[in-house]
């Protein structure tokens, strides 16, 4: 079985700063990490291999430095990594990103399962997973909380919706986006980290992906960010201390004022 995990490198934390003049997100001095949701995707990929055999891949589209995210995933136990990197990919929105990743996945070839995180810390659209599936023409399942079994080319899993879980079966190949509930990501092992350090990570550019240039990067992105600003959520709140009886009374008064009671 061939499992491909899509990961994105993102700036750590949500406490971002924007350069007031260039409107760019300030990345200097901010550590880059694997998108937190993608750790669950990586872990599930490794577990699937442990349960059902096969090989695991991670793929990422991003600048050259995203290679470190790929090595980290290999440190956790993923077998191979591919980086899609080209100046032509710059400025991709989710349509262009999912197009580019789908070409990379096709080039890896013969996949059975593609796993994506639920969404990213930075763009947080959650649109890339379904987008890749659509480009590849494979079915997809979002918000997967458990993979029950894979038998005779059929996968059974559980997905979360707003107020219920669903048990879903489908034939492979399939793409899924996973949520935190699915597992607990492991810490990289020493042995795998050594392997990750040495392994060669191929970098594929636009030409190697044999796509249509007009669908890459900014040209291939219908959406355009025209302004960004930070929002400081500072409430002009008040703090109260003292006797619990008085505190409870204060809360009660506030709830009444808000029209709840």
């Amino acid at each position, binding site marked *: 079985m061939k499992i491909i995990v899509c990961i994105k490198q993102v700036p750590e934390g949500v406490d971002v700063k924007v350069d007031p003049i260039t409107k760019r997100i300030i990345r200097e001095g901010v550590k880059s990490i694997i998108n937190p949701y993608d750790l669950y995707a990586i872990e599930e990929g490794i577990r699937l291999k442990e349960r059902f055999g096969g090989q695991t891949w991670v793929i990422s589209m991003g600048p050259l430095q995203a290679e470190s995210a790929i090595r980290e995933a290999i440190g956790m136990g993923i077998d191979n990594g591919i980086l899609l990197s080209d100046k032509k990919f710059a400025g991709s*929105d989710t349509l262009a990103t999912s197009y580019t990743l789908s070409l990379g996945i096709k080039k890896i070839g013969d996949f059975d399962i593609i796993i994506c995180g639920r969404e990213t810390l930075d763009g*947080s659209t959650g649109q890339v997973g379904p987008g890749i599936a659509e480009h590849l023409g494979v079915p997809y399942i*979002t918000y997967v909380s458990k993979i029950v079994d894979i038998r005779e080319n059929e996968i059974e899993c559980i997905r979360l919706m707003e107020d219920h879980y669903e048990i879903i079966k489908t034939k492979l190949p399939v793409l899924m986006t996973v949520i935190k509930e699915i597992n607990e990501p492991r810490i990289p092992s020493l042995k795998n980290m050594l392997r990750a350090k040495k392994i060669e990570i191929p970098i594929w550019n636009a030409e190697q992906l044999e796509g249509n240039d007009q669908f890459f990067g900014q040209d291939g992105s219908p959406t355009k960010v025209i302004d960004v600003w930070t929002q400081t959520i500072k409430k*002009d709140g008040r703090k109260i201390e003292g006797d619990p009886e008085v505190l409870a009374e204060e809360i009660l008064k506030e709830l009444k004022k808000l029209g709840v009671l």
Partner: protein
Amino acid sequence: MKIKIYYERCNLCKECINKCPFGAIEIKENRIVINDNCTLCGLCIKICPQKAIEKEKEEIKEIDLSEYKGIWFFVETKNGEIASVSYEMLTASKKLKKKLNEEICGICFGKNLKDKVNGLIKRGANKIYLIEDDIFCEFKEEIYAKSLAYLIEKYKPNIVLAAATMLGRSFIPSVAVKVKTGLTADCTDIDIDEKAGLLIQTRPTFGGNLMAKIICERHRPQMATIRPKIFDPANEEENINGEIIEEKINFKIDDKINICGKEKIENIVDLQEAEIIVSGGRGLKEGKNFEIIQELANLLGGAVGASRAAVDSGWIEYPHQVGQTGKTVKPKIYIACGISGAIQHLAGMQTSDYIIAINKDPDAPIFKVANLGVVGDLFEVLPILIKKIKEQGGK
């Protein structure tokens, strides 16, 4: 854009090499080549005496934007009823109509909905495109996506809105890919730029710390998902003027997904729809103490949330988790009990309208976002509060 060199015209005068501000042109094997430094500034095209450098023609067939008319919203249903978010999407559409003056159309899939969609017309929708078919009884992405894409291709709307619920976020992205247009996620505001007539979409990222304005200039429709609870549900109007247009599925749907069972989540009032959320964190000390939280939530008619710490300790199930790896919520009132307020938790709740925090540590970061910060022991304060609310006869 791409640069193309017509070698038959080039006489290797090197003018372009000398003038290129980026050092992006060189000679290799007796030919001009453009290297990776190129920023597509186009200066070389202008200055080449031989006119040997040209912009490669874009093959994208420019679509005729004026063909696309109408403000569409997707009508989400829940257990055969129209979900409340659908009325919010109608309000959002009405806001756009004020400036755009195009008709508002609701798109609805399901069974036995004819009477129910009338409620949307009474509230201001001009048209409802309705497809009634058994295949919509279960929500399946491929079926919903294909049907919506079919209608979009047939009627060419200018704008398509849908709620950013789990359902909307699951299938709308593949609709956008099918019709090859842009999609802005999770908007907290939308408006029309009157000069250009474009949809201006405002959305939070980085857990609400960064706001972005996004447009979709050259592709149609302009698509956006909109967070629940941003717009109020639409009210009934006086002069209504609408019709229901029934459509049929006359295309093949390759449905590979098989839903073999469903399990309701106990005790979960939909967190994203709840007006009041009472949340518990590590300060609760053990799982059974969530009973206090549940009791207060019940009294206030609200839902129960939790911090990651509480979920990871196994005190309550994951669907209750609020924060970066859980749900993003924006209730009218959020009551955080025994939650320290790690940045990842704040990311999921800081845009709530009114936040009350109860924590015995006066320096807990949760107080930074609280409108009312209560420094005290939740085990003392909450029982008294509950008693007082009961004395009043509850909500």
